[in-house]
């Protein structure tokens, strides 16, 4: 029956990548149509230690191969129901107890890879990419690793097409100016050498965080309020909107009411989960940014 599943799955995945409001029922649909399609040589028990890779696994239809996910994996909804491990307080026994034949990780902070290899558990380390293209590549690589290369390649292609289209439409009116991406209210930001920074670069933004010294080369830099006020960005995107920051709280900060972005209503609340990940829902992130640009040009 596999011949019928693949095209159907693609349709669903495309819908997931492009759909606006229908994403909540999508996973259930995927579950029903891909039961029999796991290739025999693919890992059957995959543990994902990162929310992004959990989203990717579901999006390529590998949900029946998932043996566990980390605590931050909250999308799609069925991921909440899988056995949970804490990726930030990594305990190799906790992971081994799930009997995985593949562990996918985004970080190797505490020697996770070595610890897992010591107990003969295969690992796939996929660190955060620094560009959108890197994210597409990673999706394909993960798809290959779980025996769903075709689905992943198709999804990556769809994402690319959708994103290019949104960027093209939003940049038709010229460069949007300068941008400040806020990761948290201690003013951590991301410069152009990061994934989120690359997204802004695609839109032709000039990123104010590029002016700040990046001692660790991580691309994530902390700015001071005075620096932001001095730079006076045209757009402020709140990656911390999920943590209580809003256009109103930004406007209420001392002196911030003088910012052009605040005065002209260009403080944009992003979905924090989507803004912090590089999975299939990056299309939504790009759409939120594109819509803000188009809205500012229209008004």
């Amino acid at each position, binding site marked *: 029956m596999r011949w019928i599943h693949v095209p159907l799955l693609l349709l669903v995945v495309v819908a997931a990548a492009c759909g606006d409001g229908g994403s909540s029922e999508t996973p259930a649909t995927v579950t029903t149509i891909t039961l029999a399609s796991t290739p025999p040589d693919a890992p059957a028990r995959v543990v994902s230690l990162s929310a992004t890779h959990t989203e990717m696994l579901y999006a390529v239809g590998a949900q029946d191969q998932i043996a566990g996910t980390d605590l931050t994996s909250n999308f799609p909804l069925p991921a909440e129901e899988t056995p949970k491990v804490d990726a930030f307080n990594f305990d190799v026994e906790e992971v081994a107890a799930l009997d995985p034949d593949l562990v996918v990780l985004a970080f190797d902070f505490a020697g996770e890879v070595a610890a897992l290899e010591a107990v003969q558990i295969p690992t796939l380390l996929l660190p955060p990419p620094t560009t959108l293209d890197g994210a597409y590549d990673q999706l394909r690589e993960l798809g290959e690793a779980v025996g769903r290369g075709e689905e992943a390649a198709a999804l990556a292609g769809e994402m690319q097409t959708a994103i290019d289209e949104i960027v093209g439409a939003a940049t038709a009116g010229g460069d949007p100016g300068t941008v400040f991406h806020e990761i948290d209210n201690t*003013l951590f930001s991301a410069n152009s050498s990061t994934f989120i920074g690359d997204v802004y670069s695609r839109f032709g933004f000039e990123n104010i965080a590029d002016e700040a010294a990046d001692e660790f080369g991580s691309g994530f830099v902390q700015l*001071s309020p*005075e*620096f932001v*006020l001095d730079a006076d960005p045209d757009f402020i995107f709140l990656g911390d909107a999920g943590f*209580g920051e809003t256009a109103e709280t930004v406007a209420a900060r*001392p*002196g911030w009411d*003088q910012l052009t972005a605040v005065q002209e209503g260009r403080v944009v609340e992003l979905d924090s989960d989507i803004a912090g990940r590089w999975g299939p829902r990056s299309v939504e992130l790009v759409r939120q940014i594109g819509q803000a640009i188009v809205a500012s040009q229209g008004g």
Partner: protein
Amino acid sequence: MTAAAAPVAPARLRFRPLAVAGVALAGAMVLGVSLGPASLPVGGVFLEILDRMPLVTVDSGLSEREAAIVWQLRVPRVVLGALVGAMLATAGGAYQGVFRNPLADPYLLGVAAGAGLGATIVIAAGAGGPGIAVAAAAFAGAIAAVVLTYALARTGGVGSTANLILAGVAVAAFFTAAQTFVQQRAADTIREVFSWILGRLATVGWAEVALLAPFVAVSAAVLFASRRLLDVLAVGEEEAGTLGVRTDRLRLVVVAAATLGSAVAVAVSGLIGFVGIVVPHTVRLLAGHSYRLILPLAFVGGAAFLVFADLLARVIISPGELPIGVVTAFVGAPFFAVVLRTSRRIT
């Protein structure tokens, strides 16, 4: 500190040391408002500040946004730094006097641990970084810890100094453990908690200044008023008693005033360590052992020290900022070592 260290001759607060500390404070404040990631003309900065004074209207030549940088960011930050530094140093000096223990600091009775627990709970619950909610929780936690320390010390006997310090250690250990537990349960907010613990003046505005200033005024007034009695107490608890000092009441008044002031300071600025130890001892080594000198000098010197430390915190990795607690320890410890080595007044 031994009884021999107590001054015999009355030590008056002389003009010179106070003037030196005052000049240091003024210099630190001038630098504090002049320097920052935004390169503003220094003349414009001072004209802008002048313009904000009552009954004065001058044109600073700054744009609205530059004026906001000066008046909404730099000035409140420098003022708050001065208030926090003054409060912590004075409270530290008072604690050292009232407990007759050179290691006593403003956090001795559990203020830091209690404030840390309160702030962590609120941050973990999703209130985000520094703000009034976090400050209120920190204050509540600090007061709760100190009340608990007092209650515990009283059950242990007559509420002697040693009992109080031991109770403070026990309460602090318990509150710190509770804080670590809450922190571990909320891994995604852990960085905000650390940022608060290390102390931060970056996000403060006039609201925090308005919150802290009255507490500092009352607390410092009470402590200054007690400074002669602290000198008498330095001779010894029993001796002070025979000289007519009601030591129990003195201790309660001094501890209450110092704790209240430091709790509010901690609530608005996070945990800024070292100021309460280094500044009073530096004053003691340079100017003498009388609390009549130590408390006012620590007040001005602490203000200067923290404004200067905050300046370094902002400038070293500009436009990022170091946690100010890191700077106070990093600068304060070697400075104190130098003072300790070169001073001849060590008893």
